[in-house]
Structure formats: C-alpha cells, structure tokens
C-alpha cells in the first residue's frame, strides 16, 4: 500500500488549510451587511466556510485520488489488501471531527451571545409581562429580571394567562449593546395574510414599511393575526417567526442607511411569495424628520383603522 510520505502529507495538509482560509476570506456569498450583528454573523460564516472548504476538498481529493490510483487495471482480477481496520486511525478520525465540532459549537455559542440571543428576555424563567403601551418598562424588566417592578413580576407569577403575556424567543437585548443610554425604538409588528403592518407607539404611526434610524437599537414586538409568518431581513442576518397567540421580540441595531427587503420566510398561503416589504434605514436626523412628518395629532377615537401613513 503506497502511503505518501509524512512530508508530502504535511505539505498537502498545509496547502489545503491555506486554500480553505483563502476561500473563506475571498469568496463572498453573502449580501450587504446592514445591522450591527451582520458583521458578527459574517465572521462566523467565514470560519464555517473555511472549515467546510478544507473538509470538502480534503475528502473529495482523497476520494478522487483513490479512484484513479487504485482503479482496477484491465485483466487484473485479484483482490485488494485484506485490511479490516486500524484502531489508531479510527481514534484519529473520531477525535478530529469531535474537536472541530466542539470548537464550532463553542464559537457559534459565543457569536450567538454577542448577537444577544442568550438574553434572559427569552428565557422561560424570566417570563414577564409586556404592557402593550409601555415598551421601555418591559425592556427594563427584561434587563433586570431580579429587581423589575413588582407589578411585572407579580403578573408573571400569577397563573392568569390574560394578565401575563409571555414573550417568546427571538434575538433579545443585551450582548452587543451599541449606543449606551439611548432607549430602543419600540415598533409593533402585526403580520397577516399577506402583509406586515408596523405601528410606532411613539407618535402613533402606522406604516406598511419599516423605518428605522441607523445606530439605534430597534425593538420589534411581533404578533401574527392568522397563521405563522416570519420576519426576515437578509441584510440584517435576522429572522424570527411571527406566531399567532405567542408574541415574539426581535431586537437589532441597523447600521447602514439604505432600503432593504423584508421577506416572509414561513409558508403562509397562496401569496406567500408576494409577502414582502421594505425596511428603510435612515440617518438619525432623517428618521426624526420622518417621525415628525408622519405623527398624527392625538385622534379623538381609537386610531386603528384607515390611518396608514405614507412613507
């Protein structure tokens, strides 16, 4: 059996690793990054892409080499060598994937934490009440579940399902805090067949497009009317299902002004493919101007119907 010498193997391995790193750095498969966690995501993608390239090229290279080098020559009817196993080899190729997988798992956990995914907001143990009107109170409770206001804790402790609205999942607050001291911009999202409706509690604006300021955290509180939808902005690298009966929260900080698509990513009916919208990331001043321009005077009645502001 012809085993390449240790030196050849070493050089091939080094070439492979370099090729993988080069591919990870230079082959760009992702769209523009427009939120604070997109670059974090992209660095994870690069690592996974590099590791994947090394493994794929290595395994396929070995396979193709074997198929050529060990092909059966015409007239040769003999068998190969009767090798049935090799314990050290087996240990090596059990250990290497285990280490790689463990490394990737820990690294992605770290990435997830930096994206704010592990925030106690999502934890079952930190269920808390959300008053539909006051987003910042809920936010405060989320930040400090230990000494949140007692009313909130009380509400979550009681068994009354109407009083305590449980918030599920999503990427929460914390982790990569951007601009300290500034409260998040609260936006309510209602998803229905086949549209996203955004409501800004401050200013009571209703819009079919999402307008957000660059560099400020946005807290999107989402609820679905009919079936499950999903809020996805590819340029933000974020997605969260919008679930009927279970409010979800998604917190993100847009960074790059521009317009990006909002896509519904969960099959929601015949027009699922058409359920798209736009998120417009403004410079902070432009956002304030947009809010001023669209704020309605306090309406005499419930401002639920027919007040869609144009962007």
């Amino acid at each position, binding site marked *: 059996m012809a085993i390449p010498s240790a030196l050849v193997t070493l050089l091939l391995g080094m070439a492979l690793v370099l090729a993988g790193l080069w591919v990870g750095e230079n082959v760009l498969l992702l769209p523009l990054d427009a939120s604070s966690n997109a670059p974090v995501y992209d660095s994870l993608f690069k690592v996974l892409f590099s590791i994947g390239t090394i493994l794929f090229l290595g395994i396929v290279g070995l396979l193709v080499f074997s198929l050529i080098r060990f092909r059966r020559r015409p007239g040769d009817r*003999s068998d190969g060598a009767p090798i049935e*196993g090799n314990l050290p080899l087996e240990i090596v190729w059990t250990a290497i994937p285990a280490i790689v997988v463990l490394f990737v798992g820990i690294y992605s956990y770290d990435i997830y934490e930096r994206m704010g995914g592990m925030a106690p907001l999502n934890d079952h143990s930190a269920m808390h009440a959300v008053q539909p009107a006051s987003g910042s109170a809920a936010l405060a409770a989320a930040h400090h579940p230990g000494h949140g206001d007692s009313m909130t804790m009380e509400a979550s402790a009681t068994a009354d399902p109407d009083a305590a609205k449980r918030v599920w999942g999503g990427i929460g607050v914390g982790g990569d805090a951007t601009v300290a001291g500034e409260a998040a911009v609260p936006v309510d999202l209602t998803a229905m067949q086949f549209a996203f409706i955004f409501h800004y509690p401050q200013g009571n604006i209703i819009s079919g497009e999402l307008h957000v300021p660059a560099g400020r955290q946005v807290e999107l509180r989402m609820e679905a009317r009919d079936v499950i939808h999903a809020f996805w902005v590819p340029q933000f690298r974020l997605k969260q299902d919008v679930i009927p009966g279970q409010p979800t929260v998604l917190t993100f900080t847009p960074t790059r002004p521009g317009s990006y698509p909002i896509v519904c990513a969960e099959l929601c009916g015949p027009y699922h493919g058409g359920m798209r919208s736009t998120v417009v990331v403004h410079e902070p001043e432009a956002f304030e101007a947009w809010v001023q321009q669209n704020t309605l005077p306090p309406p005499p009645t419930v401002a639920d119907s027919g007040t869609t502001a144009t962007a």
Partner: protein
Amino acid sequence: MTLANPSDFQPQGQPAPPAPSGGLQPEGWLRYLSFSLDHKVIGLQYLVCGFLFYFLGGALAGVIRTELASPISDFVARDTYNQVLTLHGTVMIFLWIVPVVNGGFGNYLIPFYVGARDMAFPRLNAVAFWLIPPAGLLLISSYFLQGGAAQSGWTAYPPLSITTPALGQVLWILSVLLLGGSSIFGGINFIATILKLRRPGLKLMQLPMYCWAMLGTSLLVVLSTPVLAGTLILLSFDIIAHTGFFNPALGGNVVVYQHLFWFYSHPAVYIMVLPAFGLVSEILPIHARKPLFGYATMVYSIMGIVLLGLVVWAHHMFTSGTPPWMRLFFTIATAFIAVPTGIKFFNWLATLWGGKIALNSAMLFACAFIVNFVFGGITGVALAQVPFDIHVHDTYFVVGHFHYIVYGGTVFVIFSAVYHWYPKFTGRMLNEDLGRLHFLLTFVGFNLCFAPQHWLGLNGMPRRVAEYDPSFTTWNQVSSVGALLMGLSTLPFLINVVVSAYRGDRAGDNPWNALTPEWLTSSPPPVENWIGDAPLVTHPYGYGTPTDRIDLNVATGRELWVGPDR
C-alpha cells in the same frame, strides 16, 4: 467486469417449489400484482411502486422548476403551486425514498443476510406493502377533488393547515397515517427478522452492515412514527371537529405541533439515509475488492446516529421562539451527529484506499453519493449553529442542503443499488454505457440544480415561493436547467432497465464475485432463497483473504460459487 460463470445450479430444470401459503398464489409476473408473501416479490413491489411515485414526484418538481424559471407567478395558479410543492415533498419522502430504501431493499436483502427463507411476519409484510398504493392514490386523488390537495407544505404547520381547504388536508393526513402504519409494520418486521431469524451460528457482529443499518432505522421508525401519527390525528380533530389542540384562536399552541412533528420528521431523515449508508457499505467492498474498513466502529456509529437522531429535532425550530437553553442543547447535539457520520465516511474512504476499484455504474453512483453527502453534511453542521440558521432558516439554502442529503445522498445510493443488484433481481446485467450516461446526466444535473440554491438562500430567497426578487432570476434558471437534465437522465435509466430485462447479458449467479449470502444462490433466487441449507457467511467482507482463512466446513453455501482465483 467479471462475466458470468455458468453455474451448476440453474433452477430451470426443476419445478418451482410451491409457495409457502398454498396453491392460490399466481405464478410468473402476476406474482408482482398479488398479495404475495415472498419477501423478494414484496421487495420488488416496493421498488417498482416507489419508482412510479418517483416519476410522479419528479414531474411535480418539474412544475416547480418551470414556475421558478421566471420571477413572477405565471405558470400555475398560486394555490395550485402550493399543492404541487406539498405533493412533491410528501410523494418523494413517504412514497419514494422511505418505502424504497427500507421496504424495497430491506425486504429483498435482509432475509438473505440473516440466512432466513423469508421475513419474520410474511403476511404483515404483504399488508405493509399493500397499504402504500391506496395511500398514494388517496393522496393524488385529493388533487382532483373540491378544494384541491393539501397546500400547507409537507410539514402541515397549523394554523395554515387548519385554514386551508379541509378535504385535501384531511386526505393528506389519512394518506400519511396509512404510510406511517406501513412503515411501522415494516420496522417491526425488520427488527424481528434481524434479531430472531438469524441462521444458527450466525452472530450479530457477523451480519452484513445493511442489517445493522436496518436495525437502527427500524428502531427509529418504531419509536418516532407513532408520535407523528398521534400528532396528525390531533391535527385532523382540529380540522374536522374544531378542537383547539393547535389552534391559537381556541387556546391551542402552534409550537407544540412543531415539536411533535419534528420528533418524527427529524429521525425521518435518518430513516431515509441510514439504509443508504448500509447499502453503500455493501456495494463499496465488493467493487473495491477489499474488506469493509472498521466493521465494529461502523456498527457503533450507526447506533450513535440513532441515539443522537432522536434528540435533535428542535434544530428545525430555531426561529420558532424556542428558549435559549434549548437552542444551545440542540445545536450541540446536532453538530455531534457529524462525528459518527464522519466515522462512516472515513471508513468508506479507507475501504477504497488500496483496493482494486472497478469504476462501473454502481461504483460511480456510490462515490458520487460520498461527494454529495459530504457537501450536504458540511452545510448541515453549519445549519446546526443557531446564529447561522437564523439567517438561512426556511430559505433556499435549506432546500439545497436537504436535497444534497436526500437526493445526492439516498437517491444516488438507490441508483447505485439498482445497478448493483439488478443482476440478482433478473439474472441479467444492465448496460454499462447507458449506466454511465445516466450517471453523468444525473450528477451534472443534480449539482447544477441544487448548488446555486445555497447562494439564493444566503442572499434572500425564501423557500416555498412561486415568485421572487428578479435579481435571483439567473441562478434560478440555472437551477431549472439542472432539473431538466435530471429529468432527462431518467430516460437512459428507464430504457436500460426495461431493455436489459429481456436483452441484457446473462449475469450468472454471482457476477461481482461477492461474498454476501444473496449472491450464493441462483439469479433470480428460488422461492425460499436457497435450495438446500442457507450458507453460513461469517466473513461477509472477507475479500483479499487467503482461501485457507475461510472455514470451508461451515460455509456450506460456498460451493454454489466458484470464484476465478480461489
């Protein structure tokens, strides 16, 4: 290729032994349309029936790719499109891959491998097969009824599945329940056969690897399919009787459905790929003329995959509002499946290393399986990472990923297995040139179709859409061209399979000089598999072994086979 050795054991001289159940069984080709109890007949029934549904599912895929050749919804109506994608997924999973890799090859091969004359429960076996055609017809018929077929995807997530036309959804549930029942019957049968029907003297660790794969798969089937059945029954209550299990308007919980659904449907992935792993483990050693590398670790890795496969379901729900600790657990459990899976792939590579590899159609498909599955496995490990998944979940990246697993993985293995066992099924060889043409078209078409979908998903194209952003048009058209090539690739295959049945070269009993027991009898085999005792094959992979190391006293079947240089 080794040509046929005219065997001294051709059964044509003597009358066929009577069927085990008495004289009412038809003879000849009519057997294949009957309630036959012969495991080989049932295996081929599964196989041919599966292929019919494969062509139907492929035609549905053709509709999808035609619709997606342009960015607007212009080929079929939008709700028809959703019916088509639902039927495509359901047909391909429940009527093609699961029945063929489990029922088809399992029924044909397992009794040979354990040295039995039939499955443990032949009647249950026939019932399991005959549940499939009515279930399939039920599913297809729903398309022509009022409201059309189910249109909530093969996942049937409520509340969408509760609000879409009820008749189609209920028939879909009924059909999947029948198919699940068939699958459970089959699983029980395989477990009983492998554990209780082994020929005396044959130890568990001497079984061909496919037996272990089927044992693991059947455990998964028996443990997880009932959960799907219960879930779908609850869902049908929600639809018919307006109960509120999963209906949020009535206080139900939609995420609970997803947990229950994926508790079956993630193991279903292993129900589809583990048998393929087993088949590859049979095919590679024979055509590489080397023993299967690392038998024991292969067995342990199958069982490792079974164990881990049961505890990873929630990685399908990373955006469904699952709590963080759950995401963390399912990320790590999922990623760790790569370890036993990796062991299998390294062992296959080591099996090839230093062999005498015959690059025939069976081998080409098996090696392409390795390439495709490694690709799909790498994207799978990436998808297991929560932050990665949050971006690409429910996008074409996932569509690309799982087609690399189920098509690039399992379907390639099914083709490989057909080229490998066709001589045993029919006594004739398939044409090699047509086989290689089939391989080339399938491999190029498959990669052209599904590789671009990864890019589409990363850049913002969600799955299950009839219309998309025009900037994705080019790669969608490339993908559609690939699908067309895949469609064309079935032509040389079909011609080959049909013509070779009548005109193919005579294969003889053991054209590959294989050591596993199904080759130690005539081709096609007699009704009870062997005339005389079943051979005791204690080294199913004893290639390259000097003759004196095989115990000729116990290998009673070996006299049926005269190898060229033994």
